[in-house]
């Protein structure tokens, strides 16, 4: 079952949402509706699901409705229409009491400007959610300490928020959200206020943390690099609408429209694109039982200096080079067995371009891409990477 499922959510900011909704459902855009009714469309008919354990990144330019969307998930903002299902329960129908209970049990939230309580020390900040749940003092302090340990802030319990750097404050924010052991973490531009280095650190720490705690995370950002770096999937928003939903790779390699393309232009693709996106199936393959002279003739025809050799079950055997083949013919070998170079570098389909580039810097031949069973999936050669980067950079 989907952890979070939203269906056809819209949000109108203004005194007469019904009127604006009517226009919205007739297909009018945000600007037209604003001109006609003076009301702002925050979200327009959004639907998607988030699976358990997934990091769903919502991204878009300022004003595209990201924060509004996030706040609809725990109803800090009530959607004007549509449903939000958490674990299959439609939370738009909950009364106030049930809503408070839901927020206490299921959600942890992290804010752009940290929103730490300035009059409470770090420990008391982190235990806030547990205190609200009514947990007894000793127990909640213990849990708060564990949570601080999780984010690497042991020993700072008695400090006040203003004594901490931005990065540390946001760790406290994260610890405060994690302390209640929520199923779902909502993070609204949680790293946007940090400087780039700290930001990168926090991203990788979040990913490491996620390996251990396995939450469902909805992460807001307006930075594509960040989105592609941490997202299992990405929702791209514009003017309150969803433009594209997909894996980081989908977004990069198949941008849905010009808006997405413009986003994608400036991204560091070598970090996001993987071998999967650039590999090709070789024009020519050899098997260990092939006759060297025949193989050499084929290679000459195709103008190749080396060839990938696969076994009968499609697993990778190795590579043969033109020179070794000539020697084999001189020796009078009947098969390729003695000519195969078996110790060759290989990569999986998930290898990012960055990794491929560094391998290919020292490996002059084609690089086989294999799966877990060593089955050949394709090959990558140097020229392909450059052309992939160049092609997608030119839009």
């Amino acid at each position, binding site marked *: 079952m989907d952890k979070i499922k939203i269906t056809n959510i819209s949000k109108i900011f203004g005194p007469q949402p019904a009127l604006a909704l009517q226009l919205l459902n007739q297909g009018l855009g945000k600007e037209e509706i604003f001109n006609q009714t003076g009301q702002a469309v925050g979200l327009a008919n959004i639907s998607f699901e988030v699976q358990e354990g997934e990091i769903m990144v919502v991204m878009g330019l300022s004003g595209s409705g990201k924060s509004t969307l996030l706040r609809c998930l725990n109803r*800090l903002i009530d959607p004007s229409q549509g449903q939000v299902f958490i674990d299959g329960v439609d939370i738009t129908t909950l009364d106030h009491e049930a809503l*408070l209970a*839901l927020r*206490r049990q299921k*959600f942890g939230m992290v804010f752009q400007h940290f929103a730490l*309580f300035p*009059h409470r020390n770090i420990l008391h900040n982190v235990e*806030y959610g547990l205190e*609200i749940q009514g947990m007894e003092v000793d127990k909640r302090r213990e849990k708060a300490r564990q949570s601080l340990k999780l984010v690497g802030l042991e020993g700072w319990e008695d400090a006040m928020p203003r004594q901490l750097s931005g990065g540390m404050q946001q760790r406290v924010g994260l610890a405060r959200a994690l302390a209640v052991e929520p199923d779902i973490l*909502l993070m609204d531009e949680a790293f946007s206020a940090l400087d780039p280095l700290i930001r990168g650190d926090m991203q990788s720490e979040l990913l490491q943390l996620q390996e251990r705690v396995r939450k469902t995370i909805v992460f807001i950002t307006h930075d594509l690099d960040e989105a592609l770096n941490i997202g299992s999937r990405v929702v791209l928003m514009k003017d309150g609408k969803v433009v594209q939903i997909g894996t980081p790779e989908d977004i990069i390699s198949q941008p849905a429209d010009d808006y997405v393309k413009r986003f994608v232009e400036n991204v560091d693709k070598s970090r996001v694109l993987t071998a999967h996106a650039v590999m090709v199936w070789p024009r020519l393959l050899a098997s260990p039982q092939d006759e060297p002279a025949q193989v050499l003739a084929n290679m000459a025809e195709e103008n190749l200096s080396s060839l990938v050799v696969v076994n009968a079950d499609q697993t990778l055997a190795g590579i043969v080079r033109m020179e070794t083949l000539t020697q084999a013919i001189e020796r009078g070998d009947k098969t390729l067995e003695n000519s195969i170079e078996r110790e060759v570098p290989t990569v999986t389909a998930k290898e990012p371009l960055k990794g491929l580039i560094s391998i290919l810097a020292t490996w002059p031949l084609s690089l086989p891409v294999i799966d877990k069973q060593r089955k050949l999936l394709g090959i990558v050669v140097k020229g392909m990477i450059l052309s992939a980067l160049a092609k997608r950079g030119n839009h």
Partner: protein
Amino acid sequence: MEELSISELPLGNLLSLPLWETVIIFALLVLLSWWAAGRLVAAVTAIGLGVMWMLRFQTFEIEKVPLDEWVEDSLNFLTDHFAFVTKGISKLTDVGIDYVIDGLMYFPPWLVILVFTFLAWRLAGRNVAFLTAVGLVFLWNLHLWKPTMETLTLVLFATFISVSIGVPLGVMAAISNTFYRIVMPILDFMQTMPAFVYLIPAIPFFGLGAVSAIFATVVFAVPPSIRFTCLGIKQVPAELIEAADAFGSTQTQKLLKLQLPLAVPTMMAGVNQTIMLALSMVVIAAMIGAGGLGGEVWKAIQRLKSGMGFEAGLAIVILAMILDRITQKIAKGHKV
């Protein structure tokens, strides 16, 4: 009762101008009020001017609205039916006040000064403690010890009552917008009305003396307590409120764990203002027999003794300074 024609009003000249000029001027006035205050006010202006135009040569007898009678009637009604309650409260409070004053006067002044100095030191640091010690010794030397203690007691009573009323009302004003919109104009009214006026109705309810003084003082001094409490709570950043909401806090939890603690410095600034207003009012209240330093000033006025008046006035200034510095320091100390 007076005979009056609209054309005798300041606007009268305007109304006897030729028709087209009047129309232009009226139109300008309506436009001006539209521009300055919106459609509604413009409409009221237009109607008002129209009515005046139609009535311009008529003569009326305008009766005074008997506001004074209405107020007196309702006060009389209240005193007739409730004075026994308020008189009872008055007796009790009187006893309480006397106890405190007697208590303060029971100990030798140097001991009291020592205690106050110590308190000032703990609450507000060395400098304020020094000011307190020097100031109080000087007052003792001026033979104004007893009236000073009386005034101090009245101020503290009035402040205590004002804060106990003001904080809950301030919280309510911060939470409920409707309540805010009702209360704020009333507070404006209470603060703009000359303070003396409160003394008059206080007497039938509480009799002459200290309790009436405290009543009038509270009416006069409670607004800053309400305003600053409300302000302090409303100033809490929206992001923090949102964080508290995101964790599922109830309204009460939010208030107790977040809004009130963060509002304390602002509330203390309100308490400071309340004390200052109470002090100024307690002096005025000497007119209805509240005694204390105000009484000394009052005596000096009646006997035209300027030296004596100056001494008592200076004593009030010193007391004000001490109270002001102590409460200010407490407010600053709470800054988060």
